[in-house]
């Protein structure tokens, strides 16, 4: 874990679309983390495609925070008295809420990785969306699957038909998520031009249209049309 924290620090300096913007003492406040985590969770739950792993070490940091908080709870349970009892309930309730967010976020990602494992492993750009642990998971998952296929039926096929990533005939065997599928998104305002909305190129059947989505406006659009704005933090899924 130690060596990747350096890389994470590096990424940190580049602009982070999901991350918290309000740093006070070098690290984002709990409030900012909660907002970033909530947004990452809703975004991840909102579309069929896997989104980039949050930069800025968000998930690692909130997981650590939850761990520390649980330790604190355990300490408090030691010297139990009626007064601290209610405090414990409050702290524990909050920890459970955070745990739900983190778990649901990770599980939503696993679902997407399971569905299109080869797709996300196929190019370095796509692989960069996964966290280190997710890459390990996906690789192992794919390996197991391939071995299973080989032993159960692929092994008896001719050699040239045994591939799982054939692209013969111009059709790739690797299926990816439907990037054109519909999503519901909210404008968050442009980051480059304060006070303005973002201009979305809406592709349609008979004509493409340019629509300005202002801050707070909710629209229905194709994922491929709003994707860049969501990844930049100028829109969010709802």
């Amino acid at each position, binding site marked *: 874990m130690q060596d990747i924290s350096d890389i994470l620090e590096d990424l940190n300096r580049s602009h982070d679309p999901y991350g*918290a*913007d*309000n740093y006070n003492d070098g690290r984002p406040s*709990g*409030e*900012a983390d*909660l*907002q970033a985590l*909530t*947004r990452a969770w*809703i975004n991840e*739950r*909102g*579309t*069929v495609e896997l989104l980039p792993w949050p930069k800025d070490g968000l998930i690692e940091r*909130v997981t650590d925070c*939850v761990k520390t*908080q649980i330790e604190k709870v355990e300490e408090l349970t030691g010297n139990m008295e009626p007064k601290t009892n*209610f*405090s414990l309930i*409050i*702290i524990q*309730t*909050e*920890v459970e809420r955070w745990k*739900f967010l983190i778990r*649901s976020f990770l*599980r*939503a990602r*696993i*679902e997407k990785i399971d569905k299109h494992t080869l797709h996300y492993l196929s190019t370095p750009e796509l692989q960069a969306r996964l966290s280190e642990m997710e890459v390990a998971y996906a690789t192992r998952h794919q390996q197991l699957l391939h071995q299973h296929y080989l032993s159960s039926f692929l092994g008896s096929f001719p050699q040239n038909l045994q591939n799982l990533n054939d692209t013969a005939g111009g059709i790739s065997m690797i299926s990816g998520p439907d990037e054109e*599928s*519909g*999503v*519901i998104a*909210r404008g*968050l*305002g442009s*980051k480059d031009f*304060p006070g303005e909305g973002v201009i*979305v190129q*809406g*592709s*349609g*059947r*008979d*004509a493409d*249209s340019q629509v300005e*989505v202002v801050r*707070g406006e*909710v*629209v*229905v*659009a*194709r994922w491929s*049309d709003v994707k860049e704005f969501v990844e930049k*933090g*100028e829109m*969010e899924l*709802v």
Partner: protein
Amino acid sequence: MALPLPPGLTPAEVAFLCEMEMVTVVPRQQLKSHDLLGGPTPALRPPHRAPLPLWLALLLKRQRRANIVPPPWLLRSSLERILKEETEISPTAFSRPPPHPHAISAIPSATDHKSPPFLASSTADAPSGHLPYHWLELGEILLQACSDDVSEPDKVRTLLRDLREVRMAKMRSITKHLEGGGVVSLEGVGAMEVAEGRQFVVGVMDGLRKLGASREAERRRREEEGGSGDGNSEDDDMEMEME
């Protein structure tokens, strides 16, 4: 381990999200400040009002340690005004959502890109006459958990139900605009309405896109060949009727 749910939040998840909304409470007993993961909570000293996230306010309410001040938009007069706007002034669109509480200034600020449930649109000093994003869930939760804090709870409940019906019809009618694809605005929509309508709206949109896929591909090919071709000049006799 993988999450067996389709894209989009479920109603239960929307309610969970709604519990992050800030509300105003009037404490009935003292409570010291707690250092929570999401930041410290204010120390509670009766009778001073304090802002708290809804989940914590509900916890205090259940133990009779505090009362919740219902947001101004949840008053009968405000809801009646909104219902009038929904039915008479703009019968096809949703009523205007509340203005963003953080105006944009020349200096970029962290609050510029905030969105519900972190906008404090349901505290005691939130504007009245507008339905915030989590209006339905928040109204229902407050009516259930603290109907003694809401004035005229029965009337408010009826008004919420009326609003819900009017707006559900509007949600369904947007499918008319989905036919040609592009970006369709749902300005003023609520979170629960999105959760309920998503399957239908996205389903219609995806279905129509697949039906029109060859036509769209053909148009793109033609536009590429002919430089900036005009997509609208096509014959319209293939137009599908949506009614």
